[in-house]
């Protein structure tokens, strides 16, 4: 601070001294704003569009193969997964996701993307150590916590006996 304007060789500046809390708040104030509303709208549009395609595929199976809505469910999901894997392999899905956010992550296509992208990425490490052990790198936690959540919900149903109306066998 002192002496820098006097032509003296000695210059001493204040050191950077901010507490982590102060600096975090300061840095946060310099970040570009993120529009939650815009992101929600995009997620709604893209997520809705993916579901619309899924509905179209399901209707196709029901019409052409004379399936019930329930029977058409599995082949519909298979088609959606296939489409997602193709788009992932072509390097398009991640670009859609940058625009769509949760819109492309939440549907089943996002799950397929997480598995196929990891499989492609780690192919260079071989089929066993690469593809096999890395495929669930991202999807693994979805499965783990999905099963745990289903287990807990199942127990709640069982304890309170509210699952009976699901039983269609009677």
């Amino acid at each position, binding site marked *: *601070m002192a002496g*820098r304007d006097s032509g003296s*060789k*000695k*210059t*001493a*500046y*204040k*050191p*950077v001294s*901010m507490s*982590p*809390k102060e*600096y*975090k708040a*300061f*840095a946060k104030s*310099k*970040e*570009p704003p*993120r529009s939650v509303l815009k*992101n929600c709208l995009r997620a709604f549009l893209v997520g809705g569009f993916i579901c619309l395609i899924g509905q179209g595929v399901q209707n196709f199976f029901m019409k052409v193969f004379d399936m019930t809505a329930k029977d058409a469910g599995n082949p519909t999901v298979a088609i959606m997964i296939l489409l997602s894997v193709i788009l*992932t*392999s072509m*390097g398009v*899905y*991640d670009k*859609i*996701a*940058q625009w*769509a*956010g*949760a819109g*492309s*992550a939440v549907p089943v296509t*996002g799950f397929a*993307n*997480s598995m*196929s*992208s*990891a499989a*492609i*990425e*780690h192919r*260079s490490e071989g089929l066993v150590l690469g593809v096999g052990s890395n495929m669930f*790198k*991202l999807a693994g936690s979805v499965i783990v916590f999905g099963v745990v959540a289903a287990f807990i919900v199942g127990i709640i149903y069982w304890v309170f006996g509210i699952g009976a109306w699901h039983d269609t066998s009677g």
Partner: protein
Amino acid sequence: MILQGRRTWVFPKPPVIIATGTVVGPDEGEGPLASEFDLVHPDLEIGQPSWEKSERVLLEQATDIALQNARLDKDKLDFFVGGDLMNQIISNTFAARTLGAPYLGMFGACSTSMESLAVASLIVSSGAGNYVMAGTCSHNCTVEKQYRYPTEYGSQKPPTAQYTVTGAGAAIVSRDGEGPVISAATIGRIMDLGIKDPFSMGAAMAPAAVDTIQGHLQDTGREPGYYDMIVTGDLASVGHPIAAELLQRNGVPMDQTDFKDCGLMIYDIQEQKVQAGGSGCACSAVVTYGHLLRRIRSGELKRVLIVATGALLSPLSYQQGESIPCIAHAVAIEASPNIEEQGGMGS
């Protein structure tokens, strides 16, 4: 005595950068500096079966080009100093295997460009070597794979995230010869102001850049105006204004000079989808060795201080909730007094 002040090396006989080699990928080839690189690849694969091999090839090509530009046989190279972002700095190690020169590997994340150039200069200046090469590289996909998610995974990046530069830069430093000279280098210290978000590295690294710039000015007694340009490595659109504001608050008269950032120079951040700007070891390396050195050779710039910034985090450390330790190394490059009036010597 080469050491001046607390942590600055001032070289009595400044080592000369006799030649450089720069190689970049397709996104850098679409950026505003495209014409200043020696080789631009149209794709990210570069004919290799894995991203890691592609990155290695980038560095091998950059070192080859630098040797060709220096008209130097690789057996004449006394040492090769370099590093990259990969675990165990494999890209440099394998490139050094190809090169065959005695090798010092270093890790400074994205600050490796100037860290290796500073060490190369010290080796040459102290008489421990005649020809020393400094090199570094990064690849967008290897970094995504190692630090973030698989490259094709559909995750939305926040606007504070940065885009890793695909490329490699190498410079040959020598005791004698023609070219820009390295007058001084300031070694950074770790600065960590508690930023934990790996998608906000510009903000994490800004205090390190500020600390090193101030340290350099204090140690050398120079004012910012001594330099035509002071350039940070990869602070990008979030970190660079933060650094500028911190410097201003600390009373450093940065208005005397042109304060810029390689991460903002390499891409057109309005047009290209790179979020806040460029990052990666290659960012400051190719901008310095390609663009800035050309401007120094042509006489447009006389003195430039390059402050390469590095975020020294690992995927493990941030998953365990650690903050991001950061560093910045500064190297002062000046036009050679001999060739100042001669204009460009070609690259």
